[in-house]
């Protein structure tokens, strides 16, 4: 649902903030949660695991054909070579874009997402409009992200209903034949690995992180 995230910091704490604080102090008081563990979990997904992992996987696949072959055959094993493994990435599949097929990932029932390579999903991925429309009108959805595909390209939408997690391997941008793997990573946006965008072109290279 639409949601205004810009809160005025002079506002008193909302009921929601108080309810969560109360729950946390109750669980700590009862010894059900170790506060240091809570901090570790939050820090892991706020600062350590994120789409920079996926960008590394994609850039390596673009430059190392043997890695790409292993990645498409058994993505869980291939990304573990780079040290990416764990929760919400136990059964990873990489789906490759080409001239005829464009892949798009959604979870219509909840918010399943490949945490090990992309971190936690963005708010729009979990929103009702994206979950509703990605399956029924993928071209209109892509268009809202500024992505226009030719009519003869088939859009393949992966609805993540099981514990399989899907990562899109975008097409390598033209004109990058002599680029290093390191430089190529900057062309791989998170949105391209979900499938709502293409990899950045060489003139859109951005240094921004996740």
């Amino acid at each position: 649902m639409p949601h205004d995230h810009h809160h005025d910091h002079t506002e008193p704490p909302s009921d929601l903030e108080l309810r969560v604080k109360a729950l946390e102090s109750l669980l700590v008081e009862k010894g059900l949660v170790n506060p240091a563990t809570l901090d570790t979990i939050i820090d892991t997904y706020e600062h350590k695991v994120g789409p920079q992992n996926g960008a590394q996987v994609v850039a390596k696949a673009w430059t190392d054909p043997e890695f790409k072959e292993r990645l498409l055959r058994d993505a869980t094993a291939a990304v573990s070579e780079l040290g990416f493994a764990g929760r919400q990435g136990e059964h990873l599949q990489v789906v490759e874009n080409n001239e005829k097929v464009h892949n798009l990932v959604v979870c219509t029932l909840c918010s399943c997402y490949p945490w090990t390579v992309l971190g936690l999903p963005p708010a729009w991925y979990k929103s009702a409009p994206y979950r509703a429309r990605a399956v029924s009108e993928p071209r209109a959805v892509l268009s809202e992200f500024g992505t226009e595909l030719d009519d003869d390209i088939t859009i393949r939408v992966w609805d993540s209903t099981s514990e399989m997690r899907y990562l899109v391997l975008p097409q390598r941008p033209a004109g990058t034949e002599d680029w290093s793997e390191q430089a190529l990573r900057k062309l791989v946006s998170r949105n391209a690995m979900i499938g709502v965008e293409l990899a950045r072109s060489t003139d859109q290279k951005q240094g921004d992180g996740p």
Partner: protein
Amino acid sequence: MKGGHDLGGQPDMGPINPEPESAEPVFHAEWERRVFGLTLATGMLGQWNIDESRHARERQDPLDYLRNSYYENWLAGLETLLLEKGLVTQEELQQATAASSSPAEDSLRVPSPETAEDLLAAGASSLMPQQDEPRFGIDDRVTVRHSETTGHTRVPRYAHGVTGRVVARLGCHSYPDSNAAGVHEGKQLYTVAFDGRDLWGSASPRSEVLIDLWEPYLDSAS
């Protein structure tokens, strides 16, 4: 299942309005950060599985589910599980303090930060020992059953009654419909490809939807 969560194909949901990728924080408020952490931390107590956790969020009134923001639904699900599993009482939740001195039961192992890191890095496979041979093969035509369960399921309603083609056999995986009810059993899992026109009519050219579906959700369409 109450259905507020089963959003695939719902009309009139409006635009997506994504925040720019470079500008979006992982969490938008401190309370979201805490709800996320508390959900994972209490999940590590081993008192419920991922399907019970999903089902706890889905069982809300559909209007509440849709009105709530994402982490509000997580919070509602977490409170439900804590109450149902007897880890906290309604009174304790309301008073925000433990009744008398009631520390965690000795049987519960509350993970240290190091153990939590290990658990996150290890994950938990949903693969199970194979019990039966898969009934369907690659390229078999299958039709999704109309399932009217009152429990948890992973069949999206938009696929009910639609025929597709098996494109992958994924092995025997923990079956969510049973797992959410506390019965851990494996069933064969398949990826089934559906033509967009079969799902949405002729207005949807050149699209396919691929859905992972367990064998009990499917009938042979041959």
